[in-house]
């Protein structure tokens, strides 16, 4: 498991390494700063969907090992989100906090993105074992906010494209499937109960 974790950790660093490599080697096209923002954003979304796919994976495989990677991949969501935010603050706005504030209050897609990053903050902060213990019964509630982040991030994506919503649609479809697996699992015990009730009635 330890080796698996190291391997996955390194794999999670591949996208950022490639971005850096391309950035310094003229591989990001004519507008490399815009490309950095765009691609770090896309990777944030991909990691978000990846971390959300671990529970469904557990359900479908009936194995618990996928959950062992949830914390690490979740933290990478925060990592890529922070890089994405930094490229915006730096290369787009050059730390002009007034402009950034105007953007946040005037442009809904920026509002969504910014809100998502702030919601991720307590999730990242309560990721250590000690913090988990401290948070106690609130921990689960805090971490369920990831579903809200998923919705906000997808809205952020839909609102920023000019006309072509193909990719936002694809990512939304994946997100929906991952949510449906959870719902199905939640429903399962109830349907078992219902079935039991039905059979009892039959017997009588």
């Amino acid at each position, binding site marked *: 498991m330890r080796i698996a974790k190291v391997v996955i950790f390194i794999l999670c660093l591949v996208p950022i390494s490639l971005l850096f490599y391309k950035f310094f*080697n*003229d*591989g990001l*096209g*004519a*507008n490399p*700063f*815009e490309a950095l923002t765009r691609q770090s954003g896309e990777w944030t979304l991909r990691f978000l969907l990846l971390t959300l796919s671990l529970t469904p994976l557990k359900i479908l495989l009936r194995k618990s090992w996928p959950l062992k990677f949830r914390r690490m991949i979740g933290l990478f969501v925060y990592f890529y989100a922070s890089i994405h935010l930094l490229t915006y603050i730096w*290369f787009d706005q*050059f730390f002009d906090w007034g*402009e950034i504030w*105007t*953007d946040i209050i*005037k*442009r809904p*897609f920026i509002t969504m993105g910014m809100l998502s990053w702030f919601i991720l903050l307590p999730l990242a902060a309560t990721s250590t074992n000690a913090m988990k213990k401290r948070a106690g019964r609130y921990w689960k509630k805090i971490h369920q906010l990831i579903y809200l982040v998923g919705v906000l991030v997808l809205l952020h994506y839909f*609102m*920023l494209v*000019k*006309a*072509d919503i*193909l990719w936002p649609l694809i990512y939304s479809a994946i997100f929906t499937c991952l949510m449906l697996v959870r719902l199905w699992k939640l429903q399962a015990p109830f349907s078992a109960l219902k079935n039991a009730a039905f059979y009892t009635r039959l017997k009588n």
Partner: protein
Amino acid sequence: MLIKKSVSIRSSEITPRDIYEQRRKFLKTSIHAGIGLATSGLLTTYSPGVFAGYGLKRLKHTKNSRFTVDDELTKYKDVTTYNNFYEFGTSKSSPAANAGKLTTEPWSIRVEGHVEKPASYHLEDLINENALEERIYRLRCVERWSMVIPWLGFPLAELIKKVKPTSKAKYVEFSTLYRPDEMKGQRRSVLDWPYVEGLRIDEAMNPLAFLAVGLYGEVLPNQNGAPIRLVVPWKYGFKSIKSIVKLRFTEQQPVSSWTRAAPNEYGFYSNVNPEVDHPRWSQSRERRIGDFFKRKTLMFNGYADEVAHLYKGMDLKKYF
């Protein structure tokens, strides 16, 4: 009409393209050498295509020093690989990747509506190959990036005079080619194809309005709107419609494709204006391709002397 002469650099001061590219190539090679031999095998920074644009058919032209700018030219490679041309796909790199399929010969342009001479013209009959001029224009995209491009072509007014619009012609509507088998982006209805743009007739007759058939001394690469495109540098880039096949002279204001797609974001005029925000972003600054820092966007993209009179008394927030 008196047009003030813009502050201009003599065309002789502009570094010829081949020398300029050689310099860049030299610089790049030196940088590579500097990075070290250990990695040199991996660093295929200039994959084929970087300079491959050169070698298209060269066009005879004169330099028009009245229409030039002091800013440094945007690299040929960037001008031809970073494009918005949704007919070939919606990412910036897809036009360069997909436009090779387009056949631009033969090419004809249909002229219809309120004109004395409605007809289908062969492109050759509309272009006087001996009267092509080079103009260096700024191009400002609505997405907040900009370039400086040496176009080759002729004033739109010349073509309009040739086809003689009647007094009923208040607007010109342009259409791009619709040919989904060669333009793969048209197989999805991202926009309402064919792409349509329009100008008020006095805008179209303004000396700045230009029909380009080439750039950097050569014919237009397909991804830049071959064989003929509009260039209206005081408006956001999407107004400069590419690969034109139709001009229609109308009494009613045309509805352009982007207005149809998002009427609250893209108006008919779409003049570059740092004071009127796009609903989703501020237009006050822009990144010149090749620059790190952004620069302030100029009113009418720096062409206020030439075009501001067209919009006298108009509320530019309302007519965005």
